[in-house]
């Protein structure tokens, strides 16, 4: 595996640690997300995946470590940015349990996604000048492109509060895309989706990567989705990196198997001696 040139790295996390009181949620985690790749975090519950996400989107501040972000024109340390500045840098995210604007329509939600691209100020907005009008039409055009991309036409004017779960997931993805990000953070994109919806999600993630050229960093449990779309996978357990590599490498890694299933010794101790049938099947 050839080491990529430094300019290929979009986001570089170095020695990240977070401590919540006595709990070390993330311990000395380092990884790179390269331009144009789908990078997946896997691991059992409580491994610290979502915490890493919240570090990148600045909801948490790391105890130690840096996150270097290579924007088109400048390189910044994300840990020095305010939470609302992250979107402006080109990082959009979705949430594990869906955080949409419930009492607004789908279109309205997508337009809120255009907030960082707003062109007008307060006074112009108050008077709704022709400049605001033109900017609104441009924002709408962009939102419509995303609606088209994700097949949401049918739900455009529906209130989010009345949408089924699977559609909400897509709306959240659409809202993140509306910010025109360079890196998309997806927190368990397939959780709560049925098989068909998960397949759709896989296609969309591939389209986002290939057609829109957006890098994706995601947390995911569904291994079929992970191996279908990811270029590289990082496995975590108890706040530490266990393995990093292609999906196949990581899935075969003994440390990863141990993290999910326990060690061979533990499994062996559960095995019953041959011949002694379980009690309940006797009668």
């Amino acid at each position, binding site marked *: 595996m050839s080491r990529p040139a430094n300019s290929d790295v979009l986001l570089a996390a170095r020695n990240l640690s977070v401590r919540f009181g006595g709990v070390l949620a993330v311990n000395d985690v380092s990884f790179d997300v390269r331009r144009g790749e789908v990078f997946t975090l896997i691991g059992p519950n409580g491994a610290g995946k979502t915490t890493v996400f919240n570090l990148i989107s600045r909801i948490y501040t790391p105890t130690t470590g840096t996150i270097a972000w290579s924007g088109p024109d400048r390189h910044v340390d994300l840990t020095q940015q305010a939470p*609302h500045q992250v979107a402006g840098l080109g990082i959009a995210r979705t949430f594990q349990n869906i955080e949409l604007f419930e009492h607004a329509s789908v279109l309205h939600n997508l337009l809120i*996604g255009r907030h960082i691209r707003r062109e007008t100020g*307060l006074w112009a907005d108050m008077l709704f000048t022709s400049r605001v009008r033109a900017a609104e039409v441009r924002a709408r055009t962009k939102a419509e492109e995303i609606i088209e991309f994700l097949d949401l036409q049918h739900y455009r004017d529906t209130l989010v509060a009345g949408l089924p779960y699977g559609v909400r997931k897509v709306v959240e993805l659409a809202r993140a895309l509306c910010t025109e990000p360079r890196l998309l953070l997806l927190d368990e994109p397939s959780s709560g989706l049925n098989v068909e919806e998960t397949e759709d999600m896989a296609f969309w993630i591939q389209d986002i990567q290939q057609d829109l050229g957006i890098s994706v960093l995601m947390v995911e449990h569904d291994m079929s989705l992970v191996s279908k779309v990811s270029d590289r996978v990082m496995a975590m357990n108890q706040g530490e990196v266990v393995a990093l590599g292609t999906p196949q490498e990581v899935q075969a890694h003994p440390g990863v198997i141990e993290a999910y299933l326990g060690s061979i010794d533990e499994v062996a101790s559960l095995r019953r001696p041959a011949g002694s049938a379980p009690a309940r099947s006797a009668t």
Partner: protein
Amino acid sequence: MRFLFKTSYAQDLRLAKHGGQVFWYGLLCLLLVAAPVFTPEYWLAQLTFVLIYAIVGLGLMLLAGYTGLFSLGHAAFLGVGAYTQAVLTGMGWPFFLSLGCAAGISAAVGIVVGLPAMRVKGIYLGMATLAFGFIVEEGFARWESVTGGNSGMPVGTPEVLGYALDTATSFYLLCLAITAACTLVILNLLRSPTGRAFVAIRDSEISAQSMGIHLAYYKTLSFALSAAFAGIGGALYAHKLQFISPDQFSILQSIDLLLMIVIGGLGSVHGAFLGALFLISMPQLISLGKDWLPDSVGQSPGLQGLVYGVVLIAFVLFEPMGLYGRWLKVRTWLQMFPFYRQGMFKRQKTFQKSDRLR
């Protein structure tokens, strides 16, 4: 049932979505402009109060209904506006300049109050604004050199561009024009990025933030705008009453204002107007009803408070969307007759929200 055929994005930006709206709102405007011709003076005065309260209600609606921040001290902003107007016009400043100052000073006070709003939420914000309301009321009472203290101060008739608006009709028309302008500003804000940022903060702060909305800025802005509207309302209120004293801006006034928008319907511009209509007509209805009640009930002093309380509880229990929500249901029933279903407006089950991020 009306089906709209949309052919351009600009169509969705229009204030009136279809010809029916143009007709009905046009008719309403005509009626309001023509009201002085066929309305007795007493009712015209009541209508003026409806307009004034609607302006304050619009501001509070922006804050509570659209940004999700509740203020229990809104009467203080009303008072700041009223006293600013009284003092400045007393010094001979022109009407619109002092009105602008009333709005500006109220907004500045709103920013000061909005600063803690970044740190406290829900009931704690309510308590903070409540305390602020008491402080301001006390300030009006104590700062006697400017406000005249508890004995109050008189307010002159407004003079606009050389014309003294000393008749009920002329002042009513002034209030109508200002109300129309304020409504237009609110509607414009709500269809532009600023208004959408407010709605985003109301519905989910965490994702508003991850969409790049600066929470502190927009929360403070919402407070400032809301206070500015209350200040404008207060200035007109002062002119209408021609006499102001600190007890007009007490906690009771704040509660009336909050009651107004909750009963009108949180999260709708119509709600501010319907609520104002309710707030002004209720005392009239109560006094009409007094004659029908036995003296022991009808003449007791707490009747108004009791009725307000019962009405508020009834609305919270049976119609959380307020008068405007009720109207929407009636309208849908009429439009869809006979296909309206019982559960059409039922709040769908909201899915569990993330608590990992708190």
